């Protein structure tokens, strides 16, 4: 049985189609990454899977339960960590977890041992009596992960688990997620728009403008876009684009994907016929994967926003 099965899922907010027919499976036990710029439809998809929003069309099941018809069953088997904190900061860390245990109807005798286990896992056992408002951003996120795990969910949803955290804290959150995979028999479904973080996933799906544009392992996706990426700046980019079939223009210059970058560059200088002012070669990253599947870098989409008329772009903030 797959942990998550999604078939033909659509979701519209009025005239805005946030999700436009999505199909995928998440295998039991894997860490599945959901990538895409803000407004791509990731959060809407997650909301539907978590029973927080109703799909307009299609179906989805989580842990074997239908998200529309078996809402409570889904809820008992998932853990959720949202982008924005949902802790009661005036209560202690322990009280937040106890509240959760009561709300989920955990058997009373299992609460205390489980509480200790999850707090130790995220390194907050010593701070259990402190009010959450004394915690740093990273500690709060760790506490939310611990809380999401309290009731031993089959699937843990992490919506942008590291957004708004400094790089060091982001790295430590990933250490905890890695540990969690080893210690708990659990499927992790996460969204991120940090490409480097997607490397931690077993498989990733790229979502853009409400559709899935790619789904595979990070290695396979990188292999699919060619081996090396050559970026050049020239005196006449338009002319260079004409002379280089397959090249794309980005904010960093003209980009060409080739088999062997080091051997390609000297040839390029000789044959291009347009003066080159700058050149760089990089191994493909998931950024390049994103670029090749969507025609934009993820940073371009972040700064420029989706290429939609302004009234639609405003609606997409809805996610």
């Amino acid at each position: 049985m797959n942990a998550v099965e999604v078939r033909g899922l659509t979701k519209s907010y009025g005239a805005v189609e946030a999700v436009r027919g999505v199909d995928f499976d998440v295998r039991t036990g894997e860490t599945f990454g959901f990538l895409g710029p803000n407004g791509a439809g990731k959060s809407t998809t997650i909301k539907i899977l978590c029973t927080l929003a109703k799909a307009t069309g299609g179906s989805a099941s989580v842990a074997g339960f239908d998200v529309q018809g078996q809402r409570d069953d889904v809820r008992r088997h998932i853990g959720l960590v949202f982008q924005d904190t949902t802790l009661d900061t005036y209560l202690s860390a322990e009280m937040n977890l106890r509240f959760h245990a009561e709300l989920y109807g955990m058997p009373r005798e299992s609460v205390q041992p489980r509480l200790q286990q999850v707090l130790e896992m995220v390194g907050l056992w010593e701070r259990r009596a402190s009010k959450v408002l004394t915690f740093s951003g990273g500690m709060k996120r760790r506490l939310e992960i611990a809380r999401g795990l309290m009731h031993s969910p089959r699937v843990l949803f992490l919506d942008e688990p590291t957004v708004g955290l400094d790089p060091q804290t982001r790295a430590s959150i990933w250490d905890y997620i890695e540990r969690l995979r080893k210690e708990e028999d659990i499927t992790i479904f996460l969204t991120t728009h940090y490409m480097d973080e997607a490397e931690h996933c077993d498989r990733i799906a790229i979502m853009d403008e409400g559709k899935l544009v790619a789904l595979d392992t990070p290695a396979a996706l990188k292999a699919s876009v060619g081996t090396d990426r050559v970026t050049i700046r020239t005196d006449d980019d338009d002319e260079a684009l004409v002379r280089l079939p397959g090249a794309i223009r980005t904010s960093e210059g003209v980009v060409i994907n080739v088999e062997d970058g080091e051997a390609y560059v000297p040839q390029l200088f000789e044959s291009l016929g347009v003066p080159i002012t700058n050149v760089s070669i990089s191994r493909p990253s998931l950024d390049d994967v994103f670029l090749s599947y969507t025609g934009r870098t993820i940073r371009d989409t972040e700064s420029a926003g989706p290429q939609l008329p302004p009234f639609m772009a405003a609606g997409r903030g809805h996610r």
Partner: protein
Amino acid sequence: MTTIAAVAIPRRSITLDLRAVKIVMQRDLIRTYQDRTRFVSALVQPLLFLFVLGSGLSSLTKGSTGPIDLRTFMYPGILATSTLFTAMFSAMSIVWDREFGFLREMLVAPVRRSSIILGKALSGATIATLQGVLVLLLGFFVNVPLTPGLAVQLLAEVFLLSFTLTSLGLAIVSRITQVQTVMGLMQVFLLPLSFLSGALYPLSNLPTWLGIVVRLNPLTYAVHPIRTAVFDRLTLPDSVRAQLNPAITWFGWSVPTAVQLLLVATIGLTLFVVAVAQFQKVE
């Protein structure tokens, strides 16, 4: 590495829903206990009404209230008004929960929404009743014959009233996402509800329009039983009783206290159902 005992969450049952009600209440009570200053400072308003406004006005009204102190007359209304404020502000806490995200944690749990809202309504009612205990003590200073029997009766009425008012508050704020908005909105309800309830003046000889509006205000039917409970324990000439605590009439029929309380309870349950339906809606 220790193996983690997988916790099996049982299916939904009445027991689980009651646990949810209890924990939602418990959290609000803990929060109130932590914020004792606010709990006590809510006493300022009844103190002002009773001892400043009440004492000041009694020099004006001397003679017209007969053998009874104006403040004794005002006391039941002030008990009801302070209940109104505390209960409505308790309901506001759900907007804070929404703004700070915690509401989401409650709404994704595998329990009925009605359990969460019931927990909120009961915690609002409990906090307002505890507040009522403090206001009750003020009765000693304004010649209210506070026997244990009267105290129990008043607190029971305050509890019923505060459940209704918290439900009203929850129904009002259910769609509001910002604390700022709700502050303004509450002002629209609080003073009109209290001024139009007969809390501060007797219902005899009112101008026709005011008489009608007062009869349409649910709070009237909570203030009157509270005042009647106090007046029943005072020795007064019938004329004074008729002037200061006249029966509420519907087209000539004097509405009995039991019917008034039933009315408050029915309105409370209806508002509770409305509040639950509001929170039930899924995106």
